[in-house]
């Protein structure tokens, strides 16, 4: 086993990986950007090194800087987390050349799976069903009309090097295609350094269900069951759960077989995830992509299977054979994850920034919080807006939902807007409670994201603010009106109300 590992990431995943490495008795090193100097992952690691700079490009995406620091501190391996360099084959190669083990699949596998066209071909070869799609497009190349032939509308524009919904657009009409291609290409170029995009048939009422797979270097490959990820905004997951309410045993078994076949076809070693679209109307499923990294939502698998994904990843990277057989994978109970984003759910989930004036993680039976922030921390626009992941486990689905609702209710966050009010509404919604929901869930129910009107502002909250203001001795006029901080964020507000 490694004696020292560098974690080349930030936020909750850096903390999560560091915790496991430390529990395994492995010395840890972290890296950080200037705005992250006081972040929890820096405090937690045995050693932490400044990358110098603020933007992702200057810091967590700077391959040379990270490898130089890893070698200098005597690390034997690098854990990339997710995002940043996790699926960058060049980084994986750089690590190997510098004598470092990259905790993830081989650069060849990352390259194959990172190319959505080639990965689809691999799926077809493995006998896994796929969604019809177009060749690649980039600005100045072929006419959009040429590539949309045979796909039909509505369709999806997707980035060749994609993930997390970046560079993705849904297009309903032919006249909207060209602007969507350009915008998606620009976003993809900025997020991934690759502006190639393509079109894919859009399947309405689809569910997004993925299977966790695990493979060792000897080729032993197993699946760790599914995660249902259909609650999405801007094509990014918000709530995930396992087991999926959409699968029966027959469909589950067929999809699991496809996932394992796909992993084998890609020559996969380490932890990976095979994503599928499930057509809720027909019960058919299609391969979407395979993610060559640890997923954001891995904790729900950990909770129902009682295992540690990061430990398994690390053992595989260190050359150990899988200690688990397929028959060892027995799920227990139900787990849900809610991603806590710094965003305003009432303004189209626009990201928010600011200082975390209050951050009091909830606790309780079956509750787990994977967090990358602390009270007092500045949330900047430099990085992703996800602050933490709240996970609830229960012996059954309804008890897991109940525990999650209780934890969200008792989770004070002040200073930045969060999606907690949205999460509470979504979990309480009859469609979610019944399990009959798909990726159109948020768009279908505007009440999930409707801003409360002035009359909906809780009177107790306004009274507290009023008393607080008065006792600070700053109330000169005797009139203090409560207004939203921004006109774009009506939820903050009491724009029409006045309190004495």
């Amino acid at each position, binding site marked *: 086993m490694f004696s020292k590992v560098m974690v080349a990431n930030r936020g909750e995943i850096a903390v999560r990986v560091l915790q496991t490495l430390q529990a395994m008795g492995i010395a840890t090193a972290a890296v950080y950007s200037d705005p992250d100097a006081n972040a929890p992952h820096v405090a937690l690691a045995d050693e932490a090194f400044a990358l110098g700079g603020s933007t992702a490009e200057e810091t967590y995406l700077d391959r040379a800087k990270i490898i130089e620091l890893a070698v200098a501190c005597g690390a034997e391996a690098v854990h990339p987390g997710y995002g940043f360099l996790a699926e960058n084959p060049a980084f994986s190669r750089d690590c190997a050349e510098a004598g470092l083990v990259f905790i993830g699949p081989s650069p060849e596998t990352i390259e194959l799976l990172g190319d959505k066209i080639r990965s689809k071909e691999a799926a077809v070869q493995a006998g896994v069903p796929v969604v019809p799609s177009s060749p690649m497009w980039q600005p100045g190349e072929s006419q959009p009309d040429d590539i949309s032939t045979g796909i039909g509308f509505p369709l999806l524009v997707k980035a060749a090097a994609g993930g997390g919904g970046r560079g993705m657009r849904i297009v309903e009409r032919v006249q909207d295609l060209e602007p969507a291609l350009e915008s998606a290409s620009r976003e993809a170029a900025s*997020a991934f350094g690759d502006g190639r995009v393509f079109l894919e048939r859009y399947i309405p009422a689809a569910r997004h269900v993925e299977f966790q797979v695990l493979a060792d270097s000897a080729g032993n490959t197993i699946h760790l069951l599914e995660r249902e990820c259909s609650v999405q905004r801007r094509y990014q997951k918000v709530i995930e759960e396992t087991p999926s309410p959409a699968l029966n045993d027959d469909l589950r078994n067929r999809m699991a077989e496809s996932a394992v076949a796909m992993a084998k076809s890609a020559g996969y070693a380490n932890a990976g995830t095979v994503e599928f679209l499930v057509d809720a109307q027909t019960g058919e499923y299609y391969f979407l992509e395979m993610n060559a990294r640890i997923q954001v939502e891995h904790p729900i698998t950990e909770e129902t299977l009682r295992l540690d994904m990061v430990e398994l990843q690390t053992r595989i990277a260190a050359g150990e054979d899988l200690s688990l057989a397929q028959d060892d994978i027995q799920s227990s109970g139900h787990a849900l994850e809610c991603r806590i984003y710094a965003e305003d759910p009432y303004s189209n989930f626009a990201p928010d920034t600011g200082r975390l004036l*209050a951050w009091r993680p909830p606790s309780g039976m079956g509750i787990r919080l994977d967090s990358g922030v602390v009270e007092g921390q500045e949330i900047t626009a430099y990085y992703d807006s996800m602050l933490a992941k709240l996970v609830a486990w229960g012996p059954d689905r309804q008890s897991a939902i109940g525990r999650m609702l209780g934890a969200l209710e008792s989770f004070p966050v002040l200073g930045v807007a969060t999606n907690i009010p949205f999460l509470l509404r979504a979990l309480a919604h009859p469609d979610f409670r019944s399990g009959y929901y798909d990726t159109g869930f948020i768009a279908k129910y505007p009440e999930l994201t409707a801003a409360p009107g002035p009359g909906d502002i809780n009177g107790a909250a306004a009274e507290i603010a009023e008393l607080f203001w008065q006792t600070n001795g700053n109330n000169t006029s005797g009139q203090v009106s409560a207004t939203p901080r921004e006109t774009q964020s009506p939820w903050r507000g009491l724009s029409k109300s006045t309190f004495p």
Partner: protein
Amino acid sequence: MTTRRLQQTHPPEPEAGPAQPEPAAPVANGETGIDITASSPGRWEGRVRLSDGRTAPFLARRDGQQIHVWIPGQSYVFSPPAPTTRARRSGQQASDDIVCPVPGVVIAVHVSVDDQVVAGQDLVIIESMKTEQIVKSPRGGVVERVAVQKGDRVDRGMRLVVLVPVGWEEV
């Protein structure tokens, strides 16, 4: 002022209509059901009685001129009165500042001065937290000013574009 909030928290007076002003009543601690259990400069926590009679925990934080309040499941920001809205030319709709909804970097500006725009048209694209945010025109008009250019770092609330109604300049 009678407020919707006051109607909500206190049972409405039988004779008090929604539009009828009411003298500003000072809030006495004992009457509001606010019980402060811990406080330090700019920070309170305690329990509050909700309109349905239950009590619930709360947190309050002061940040500059703003007061942030958390009660179970909800967070609010309260601010002192906003400055009076600027004077408008009589009989005319005022010019309209299109402000930046998120902090980030301007990656595209789709309009120029004197362009006529329609409601829903893309004006400016901001990249924030690695996501494109498209700022659309809230209504039709003519671009009077473009305050940013590609590559500018922008903050929430910063003016991006100033619109005036069509025909404004001829008046």
